[in-house]
């Protein structure tokens, strides 16, 4: 078995006076999609933000490709090759779709310097981007914004994507589009750590799963095992597939 790409060991995070993460242990294997499940307030978003350095871990280590990154600033972490799609998608509403993409392309100073081949591939994944290329991103629909957010994260090849609840608030048909896009993305050996509440969405994509509760990872294993064991689902997520789909 290969080394994990990202490894969290005993990570604690405080936000102000509140102790949110109580020792998170998590491994993300290269080339796989790991899904972080758990109820609201379990600490999933905080985990992603802590990895990204937006909140500093107060204890524990975060290792990316063998390097401890928990003390680095967010821009440095981004330069190590982590891309982050926050829950609110972080779209710059006043900027056009094109400008949003240009900002994410760190190596391009100008639109012409963006990798045309990769852009074409992205347009194939998310055709809406091409249509609205010169429109202010604030005018896009929720689903289109989510696609822009994901496309922005992968405008240049990044070894690890952190994506926070992409399915939130989207219509089922849009979610299905997103699923096919993620499937194609998985073909490119991109490693993804996905936070999801929607188990139905998660089980179609995830290779591995980690379930959080109360600021800790309470279960980690393969997605197949979890999908196959309704008792475990009941116990961990308080739901069963039967009642959900």
């Amino acid at each position: 078995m290969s080394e994990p790409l990202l490894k969290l060991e005993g990570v604690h995070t405080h936000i102000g006076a509140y102790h949110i993460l109580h020792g998170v242990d998590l491994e993300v294997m290269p080339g796989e999609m790991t899904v972080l499940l758990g109820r609201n307030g379990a600490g999933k978003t905080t985990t992603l933000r802590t990895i990204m350095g937006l909140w500093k871990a107060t204890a524990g280590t975060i290792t990316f490709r063998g390097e401890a990154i928990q003390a680095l600033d967010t821009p440095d972490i981004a330069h190590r090759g982590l891309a982050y799609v926050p829950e609110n998608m972080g779209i710059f509403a006043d900027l056009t779709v094109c400008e949003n993409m240009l900002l994410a392309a760190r190596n391009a100073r100008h639109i012409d310097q963006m990798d045309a081949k990769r852009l074409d591939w992205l347009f194939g994944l998310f055709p809406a981007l091409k249509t609205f290329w010169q429109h202010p991103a604030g005018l896009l629909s929720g689903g289109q914004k989510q696609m822009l957010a994901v496309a922005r994260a992968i405008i240049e090849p990044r070894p690890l994507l952190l994506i926070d609840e992409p399915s939130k608030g989207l219509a089922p048909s849009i979610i299905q589009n997103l699923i096919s896009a993620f499937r194609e993305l998985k073909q490119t050996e991109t490693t993804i750590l996905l936070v999801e509440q929607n188990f139905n969405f998660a089980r179609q994509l995830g290779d591995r799963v980690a379930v959080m509760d109360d600021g800790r990872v309470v279960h980690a294993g393969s997605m197949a095992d979890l999908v196959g064991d309704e008792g475990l689902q009941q116990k961990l997520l308080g739901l069963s597939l039967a009642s959900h789909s």
Partner: protein
Amino acid sequence: MKIPDSPAQIMETLPSVKTDRLPLFLLPALALVALPLIGSFSTWVTLTFAGLAMGMIIFIIASGLTLVFGLMDVMNFGHGVFITLGAFIAVSVLGRMAGFTESPSLVRNLIAVVPAMLAAMVAAGALGLVFERIIIRPVYGQPLKQIMITMGGMIVAVELIKVIWGAQAIPLPLPEAFKGSLLFGETAIEKYRLIAVVVGLVIFAMLFWILSRTKVGLLIRAGVHDREMVESLGYRIGRLFIGVFVAGSALAGLGGVMWGLYQQSVTPEMGGAINVLLFIVIIIGGMGSIGGCFLGALMVGLVNNYAGFLAPKVALISNILLMVIVLLWRPQGIYPAGKA
């Protein structure tokens, strides 16, 4: 679950592009309302031009302040000191080049004025760098301390200016070729006001170009909107902020030179006095918005000059009135800078 046949299904039609044009009519409306009140057309043109010139200078000074606020929620109550420093640097430079400023040749005048402006910008920018490092850096995210410490920084810096140049007002005469007026029929337009308007427009155009056409400009606009996301994309917003702060200070220094020439004298207190106007402009424009700042500055300039003519006693009150009216209309200012 239904799988869409084609990507076309996700392409709902976009709402038509709605840009907020209404505020753009404010300036002409303001000017038109003033015309019958003033009565004489040539007086109106003179006042309008004076107002635009004043507004342009205020815009040059305030632009950095509003961007700095938009980017980092930092409001520098000591911004006025960069104005003062710029003006005093101009006094020193132009004083040494009297041979050039007193010559009637525009070229010779410019040979003196342009270096004076550049020196003022460099000095104000350098002071800005020091200010950011030792005054503002330690109090990020603490508005109360920020207000006090920037105020304190200004007190100290103004006192230091007094140590160097003395506490008295110093005359700053206009170069020969800048003096006098151009006559268009009945209407007289002071040459210097024309110059101020042109310089202001050039600066606005440059800022506009940088903000809309360069990557740094995109980063600034994105940073005003969502600081964390810019960092997550791998850019150091701190460095961007310092850059904007220093550039804003340098522009304030340039504005100081222009304001000093406009008043034809400089005093150590001049910056503090303009601070009030700056705040009004920024509040009117929407804190953090460069376009709003431009409109707000021109409106304040116009209202000041119209009111100064129509009812001199209430000239400063007129700014407050303008601010209250704008805030009643749009509580966040003309163009609220979108915060995520």
